[in-house]
């Protein structure tokens, strides 16, 4: 295809990506350097109390929002990297590791670092589990008899079909608080059973839930890829004397490698933006993610104002984190592609 024709073909999607992705991204980046403040004015208020002979009046200076048409007047101020500083709190980080500081315990008090710790753990622990479980199911299904494959595929895909929030809620109703299983256990044992009440148990639950939810995606990709394994190569290995494990190692896994990179890319992008599980399991008391941090900053506070600047900074930091995680995989893909080309 001529380059010019190709450009015409991709032009609409490029235009849409510019309008709906690049522009909002640039806008968020721009907004992360501003703070929106409500303007206050000093007013002298005289309040008088009725007395026996004369009334007693006091005057005081009060600060109150400037109103225009009944709404507070705001201003946007350029603050440079201040929002990033407020989110990341480098001063508190340095203090935590200075002599007399509380170390990690102090760092965990800072929302951003707490969210980053959880998000990274969530992403990096679920990644190998999702790929491993997906692979095991795909390999098992590939050796199952043909008539069983349809039903197994359907059942395996169910967790992926269910909306994350609904899935999380159903698990919550099973285990947490007065959940069905918890209540049943209480009734059976007569003990006061409380499941998933500690931070680490909730964390394990969140991780397990994500693996359960996403493994079907990995499985279906790997299962499709397994259908394209070169049968001649596989049979060569059989005749050459390779064991089942050696065939997996030398024929199947190398064939699946690009598909694993694909699943890893998708999963990294998705898991780093973990949000649904926090909401579904109401886990925010124990764990928050970067995406949840951005969301909570965007929620109006008591006075109705929202920290758009800090939320923008937080979402930019989330994006930078995703890109940093993706770089090794993208480099690998590019190198493979380059070698083949």
């Amino acid at each position, binding site marked *: 295809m001529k380059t010019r024709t190709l450009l015409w073909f991709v032009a609409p999607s490029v235009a849409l990506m510019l309008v709906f992705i690049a522009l909002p991204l640039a806008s968020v980046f721009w907004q992360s350097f501003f703070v929106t403040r409500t303007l206050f004015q000093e007013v002298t208020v005289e309040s008088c109390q009725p007395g026996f002979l004369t009334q007693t009046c006091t005057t005081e200076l009060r600060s109150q929002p400037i109103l225009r048409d009944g709404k507070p007047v705001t201003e946007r101020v350029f603050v440079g990297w201040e929002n990033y500083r407020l989110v990341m709190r480098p001063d508190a980080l340095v203090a935590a590791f200075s002599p007399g500081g509380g170390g990690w315990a102090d760092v965990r008090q800072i929302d951003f670092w707490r969210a980053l710790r959880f998000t990274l753990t969530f992403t990096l622990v679920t990644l190998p589990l999702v790929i491993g479980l997906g692979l095991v199911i795909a390999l098992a299904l590939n050796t199952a008899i043909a008539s069983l494959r349809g039903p197994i595929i359907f059942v395996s895909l169910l967790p992926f079909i269910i909306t994350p929030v609904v899935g999380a809620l159903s698990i919550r109703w099973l285990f947490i608080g007065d959940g069905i299983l918890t209540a049943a256990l209480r009734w059976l044992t007569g003990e006061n059973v409380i499941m998933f009440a500690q931070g680490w148990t909730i964390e394990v639950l969140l991780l397990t839930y994500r693996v359960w939810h996403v493994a079907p995606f990995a499985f279906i990709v790997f299962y499709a890829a397994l259908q394209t394994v*070169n049968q*001649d*190569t*596989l*049979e*060569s*290995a*059989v*005749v*050459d*004397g*390779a*064991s089942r494990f*050696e065939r997996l190692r*030398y*024929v199947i896994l*190398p*064939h699946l*490698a690009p598909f694993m990179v694909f699943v890893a890319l998708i999963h990294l992008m998705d898991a780093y933006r973990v949000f649904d599980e926090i909401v579904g399991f109401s886990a925010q008391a124990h764990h928050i993610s970067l995406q949840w941090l951005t969301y909570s900053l965007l929620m109006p506070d008591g006075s109705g104002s929202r920290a758009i600047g800090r939320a923008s900074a937080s979402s930019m930091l989330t994006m930078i984190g995703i890109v940093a995680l993706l770089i090794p995989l993208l480099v690998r893909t590019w190198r493979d592609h380059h070698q*083949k080309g």
Partner: protein
Amino acid sequence: MADVSLRGVTKRWSSFVAVDDVTLSIADREFVVFLGPSGCGKTTTMRMIAGLEDPTAGEIRIGPRVVNDLEPKDRDVAMVFQNYGLYPNLSVYENIRFPLKVRKVDKASHDRRVRRAADLVELGPLLDRRPRELSGGQRQRVALARAIVREPEIFLMDEPLSNLDAKLRVSTRAHLKNLHHELKVTTIYVTHDQVEAMTLADRIVVMNKGRIQQVGTPTDIYDDPSNTFVAGFIGSPAMNLMQGEIAGGVFTGAAVRIAGLTTRATGPVTLGFRCEDAAVAAPDGAEIAAPIYSVELLGDATMVTVRAGGALATVRTTKTFRAEIGDPVGFAVRPETCFLFDRQTGERIR
């Protein structure tokens, strides 16, 4: 080194019979070619010898051992596949070494054996490359080296030249012939290309619809076909086969009359002769006389085709022959070069 024998080997997939009661003995160091059209069961037979398919019935022996229940790796065979079956992520060297590695052969001997196998197929300078960096012919040579390196008792080759272009096929064919001469290993080779079969084989096994049609040397198969399938499959062009009646040693059919046939058969038969065994002659008095259907100039010869005995009959003549389509022409056919076949069963009438 080993001989191979198949006794009543059958492969069925529900009602479909892929290989039907095949009995065959292959001598030690023999080069046997399974030849037949697509779906004739030749590859399935080879795969059963390799252990990649289980026979539904029958017995397969390699040397003194019945191998029906042995895993492919325990049969001491090496196989070369049509699509090479190389490991794309391993270098040429590692591809060739693979069977030694997975069979836990003494590591000290690996390098010597890999290099010897690579030298035999002239791959020496390419050992560090990946399969994707090689041409089709080079890839097939890697597959050959991988088969050679283990020094198996039997080589199995499943249409190894089919993916190569015509020129490369000729040179690789010669290479294979030479390798067999050097290594003297029993070889079973599957192909649908009769030229490969004729040039490579000590013996050819012609198969059709899961059954063996004829087993013999290339000369036997060409000069003494046992039925119309073999006669019509071997040779380029294949044997001319025409329908007619025979009585008193005289065959008559549409536009054909051949007298002097030494047979006592009577009734409807199929008569066959090879294109090079007849000559173009004047229509008057010729055994076959008909208008020309087509004239094909091959460079070194001319193929003249007429319609006779309910089929097309072709004769090879000199390169200088010139005639137009529709011109009357005669074919002089000597009765001693003719073959007679039963019209119903297709079997040779001797």
